[in-house]
C-alpha cells in the first residue's frame, strides 16, 4: 500500500481543483488560439486548395488570374478579421508589431522578386509558394511554434518534390499537399487545444 502524499486537502478537493484548472485553461487556449494562427492557416489553406485546383482545371489564364485575385482578396479580408479579433481578445504579443513589419517587408521583397525573376507558370507558382513557406518558418520562430516551423518545412519539401518530380501535376499536388497541409494543421491546432 502506497503512502498518502503530503497534502492538506482531500482527494475530492484535488479533483475539483483539477477540473477548475482544466476549464480555465481551455477557456484561455480558446481565447488566445496562438494569435489566431489556426484561423490564418485554415483561411490560406482553403485559398491554396481552391486556387491551385483552378490552376490545374481551368485552362483560361485570364479566368485563373481572376480566381486568384478574388481568393487573395478574401484571404486578406479573413486575415484582417483575425488580426482585429486578436486585438480585441486582450492577449498581447510583445513581438506582434515586429512580426507585422516582417510580413510587410516580406510582401515588398516578394513583389520585387516576382517582378525581376521573370518566372512564369509553374515556376512562378513554385517560387511564390516557397516564399510563403519562408514567411511561415520565420513566423514560427517568432512564435516559438514547432507546429508552424514543421509545417513550413514540410510544405517546402512538398513544393520542391512536386516541382522536380511531377511538374505536370504540380498545381494539383500543391492543392492537395500544400493547401491541404495548411487546413489540416489549422484544424489540428484548434482541436488539440479544446
Amino acid at each position, binding site marked *: *500500500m*502506497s503512502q*498518502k*502524499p*503530503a*497534502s*492538506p*486537502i482531500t*482527494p475530492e478537493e*484535488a*479533483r475539483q*481543483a*483539477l477540473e*477548475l*484548472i482544466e476549464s*480555465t*485553461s*481551455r*477557456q*484561455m*487556449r480558446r*481565447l*488566445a488560439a*496562438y*494569435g489566431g494562427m489556426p484561423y490564418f492557416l485554415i483561411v490560406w489553406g482553403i485559398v491554396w486548395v481552391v486556387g491551385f485546383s483552378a490552376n490545374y482545371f481551368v485552362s483560361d489564364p485570364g479566368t485563373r488570374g481572376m480566381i486568384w485575385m478574388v481568393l487573395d482578396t478574401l484571404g486578406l479580408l479573413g486575415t484582417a478579421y483575425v488580426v482585429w479579433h486578436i486585438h480585441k*481578445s*486582450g*492577449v*498581447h*504579443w*510583445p*513581438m506582434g508589431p515586429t512580426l507585422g513589419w516582417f510580413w510587410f517587408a516580406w510582401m515588398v521583397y516578394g513583389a520585387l522578386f516576382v517582378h525581376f525573376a521573370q518566372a512564369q507558370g509553374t515556376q512562378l507558382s513554385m517560387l511564390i509558394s516557397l516564399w510563403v513557406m519562408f514567411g511561415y518558418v520565420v513566423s514560427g520562430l517568432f*512564435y*516559438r*511554434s514547432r507546429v508552424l516551423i514543421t509545417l513550413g518545412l514540410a510544405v517546402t519539401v512538398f513544393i520542391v518534390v512536386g516541382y522536380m518530380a511531377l511538374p505536370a501535376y504540380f498545381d494539383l499536388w500543391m492543392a492537395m499537399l500544400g493547401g491541404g497541409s495548411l487546413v489540416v494543421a489549422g484544424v489540428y491546432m484548434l482541436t488539440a487545444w479544446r
Partner: protein
Amino acid sequence: MAEFNALIHQPVRLRIMAALHALPPEARLEFGRLREMLDITDGNLASHLRKLEDAGYIQVEKTFVGRRPRTYIAITEAGRQAFEAHVEALKALLSWEEEE
C-alpha cells in the same frame, strides 16, 4: 517535482495561474480581460495579483497604449514551475486515492 502550494491553491489564484500558464510563450494577458474571465472586481483581482507577484510567480507590466493605461500580466518561469508542481501534487493525491 510534485509539491502542494497553498498560495496557488486558493481558487481565484488557481484560476489566474491556470489562465496564464495556458497562454502561449511570450504572450501576456490584459488586466481587464482577466477580470472578465474570472468575473471578480478590480480590487479583488489586484489583491490576488499582488500576492502572486510578491511570490515571483507573475510579472505585471503597466504601460500606455496611446493615452490609455494598460496592465499586462504574464507568468514567470518560477511561476510556471510552481504551478506545474502543484498540479502534479493534485494528480498524485488522486492517483493515491485510486490505488487505495
